[in-house]
């Protein structure tokens, strides 16, 4: 069921959510950069600029404590972090490419061992997506089978309408509950017309063909030419909505400190470096190959989907100008 939410009522909704003590996370300007961050007031939301990083950090922070420890004499105390302390959250204004990545992460963090840090936050978060009306030349969601109005991964999808305001479609129990709890702010649509959605300038890539080539071409001279430019900075993994690897480090002294989980990147030389000095991915092309293999083959083999939503962030940010969309498209034509 579609409802109409006026621009004014959208602000009121955010205000009410903030006032109710929920953490409301939305794209917000922060020192010149738009990031998904907690809002203090509804006016802070920025809906016309793509956030620099993806929305995944609402569930999977860049850095988080997983245990803390203290030592007195020979007595060591280890304190687990209580996932119950994670706040109820509404993630608003999520781009469809960011929302679509959430189920990809769900699969990783609930497979076999259940990661309570991720899953508890996930359980407590309602995802309010917003369809895109503008795309830049790095956007390629349509090339990987998504679209600027794709509802995948969200609880509610908002679509901007002519003259202001949004059409709102709740698509899960969480989404319906949020609309029902603020029913007075929503009305029946009255001939409201959606703004035209963005049209990324890319062609659909045949991902089956990509997978097929990857299945049989782990060793191929093209990997060298594909990845020679990669400087191994890891920026692509940090801005990616679907990348999810992490590092575990202790911060502190012998007396007290915390164990933290930090984002990591398979592009880093140290990522696979063994204590013995051996490194199975000793050269940058092998690391970049892993990036492509993981996104378009390994993850597919394991979970039946691809680990890329076409957000284009890695293309915008790569200091060496590596364009993953072009690389994958080339592979599809091999």
């Amino acid at each position, binding site marked *: 069921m579609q409802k109409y939410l006026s621009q004014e009522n959208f602000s009121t909704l955010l205000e009410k959510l903030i006032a109710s003590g929920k953490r409301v996370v939305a794209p917000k300007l922060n020192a010149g950069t738009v990031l998904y961050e907690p809002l203090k007031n509804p006016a802070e939301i920025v809906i016309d600029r793509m956030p620099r990083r993806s929305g995944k950090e609402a569930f999977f922070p860049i850095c988080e404590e997983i245990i803390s420890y203290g030592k007195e004499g020979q007595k*060591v105390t280890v304190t687990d972090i209580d996932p119950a302390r994670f706040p109820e959250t509404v993630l608003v204004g999520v781009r469809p490419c960011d929302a679509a990545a959430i189920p990809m992460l769900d699969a990783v963090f609930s497979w076999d061992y259940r990661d309570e840090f991720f899953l508890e936050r996930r359980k407590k978060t309602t995802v309010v997506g917003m369809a895109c009306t503008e795309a830049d030349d790095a956007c390629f969601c349509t090339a990987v089978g998504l679209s600027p109005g794709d509802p995948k991964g969200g609880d509610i999808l908002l679509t901007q309408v002519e003259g202001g305001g949004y059409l709102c479609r709740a698509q899960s129990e969480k989404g319906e509950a949020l609309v029902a709890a603020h029913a007075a702010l929503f009305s029946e649509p009255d001939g409201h017309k959606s703004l035209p959605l963005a049209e990324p300038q890319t062609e659909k890539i045949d991902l089956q063909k990509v997978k097929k080539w990857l299945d049989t071409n782990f*060793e191929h001279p093209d990997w060298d030419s594909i990845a020679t430019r990669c400087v191994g900075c890891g920026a692509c993994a940090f801005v990616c909505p679907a990348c999810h*690897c992490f590092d*575990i480090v202790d911060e502190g*002294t012998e007396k007290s400190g915390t164990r933290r989980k930090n984002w*990591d990147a398979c592009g880093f030389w140290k990522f696979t470096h063994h*204590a013995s000095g051996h490194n199975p991915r000793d050269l940058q092309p092998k690391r970049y190959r892993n990036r492509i293999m*993981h996104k378009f083959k390994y993850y597919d083999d394991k979970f039946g989907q691809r680990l890329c939503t076409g957000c284009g962030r890695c293309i915008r940010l790569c200091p060496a100008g590596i364009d993953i969309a072009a690389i994958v498209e080339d592979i599809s034509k091999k």
Partner: protein
Amino acid sequence: MPPLLPESAIIDEIIPQTPDTTLFRLLPKERVKRLHAADFSPGQFLQLSLPGAGEIPVSYCGAPGEDGCIELCIKKAGHVTEFLHSRSIGSVAGVHGAYGNGFPLGIMAGHDIVLIAGGLGIAPIRSLLMSLLTRASLYRSITLLYGARTPDQFVFRDELILWQSSTALKTLFAVDRSDGVVSSGTLSYTTGMLNMAVAELSLHEGCIAALCVPPAAYPGIITELKKQGVEDENIHLSLERRMQCGVGRCAHCAVGTMLCCQDGPVFSYAGLRGIQGAI
């Protein structure tokens, strides 16, 4: 799934093996309690946690036993292992585990067993060997092949000498280069790469091989084993990867679609068929 929070253990014994490698024996801090991590099978690993330094995965090198003692043979290689080497008897260390898949002890009865270790790869192989030796008559034969870079790099030297004179197993020790030394104490060894030593074994079909050697040594040794008729299904190898979380999340130890910490670290060579980049 073992608990993820480290349990306190104390370092009960510290036995230097080489200038940079040491055997640590750990016991539960509260003697009456058994550590979860003391329940393991050879080839599995635990996470060793040192407050202020960090956490690392380490293979068990002892046999699982009633006493609940955990033996770890550790080389100074980074800041956690350096820190561990600065500890003294009675110091506290955190442990949790056991994780991963070990060697398939269950299928070994009645077979010729050949164990091949290179360098510190002896750690999990010693664990397996000690388990096999508790019921040595179950196996048709047991052969241990252990290679080190130089004679002074052999660890568990006293045990090697005992095993060399034992009738329960056949041993063959090899060094890459002897620097002119032909024997070290009463330990005798040959000079040459491990795969050359493998070529000297006369193995039969149905032989089960368990390997833990440096990554670069695998291809040559596997080729030799196959040449002698050992089947892919019967070659079990412990892969070295940089593990972090130990529970299949962080992606550091990925081997194609598989994860070394969950699907390994012991894989059968047949199971790695088609996984490019594994070996």
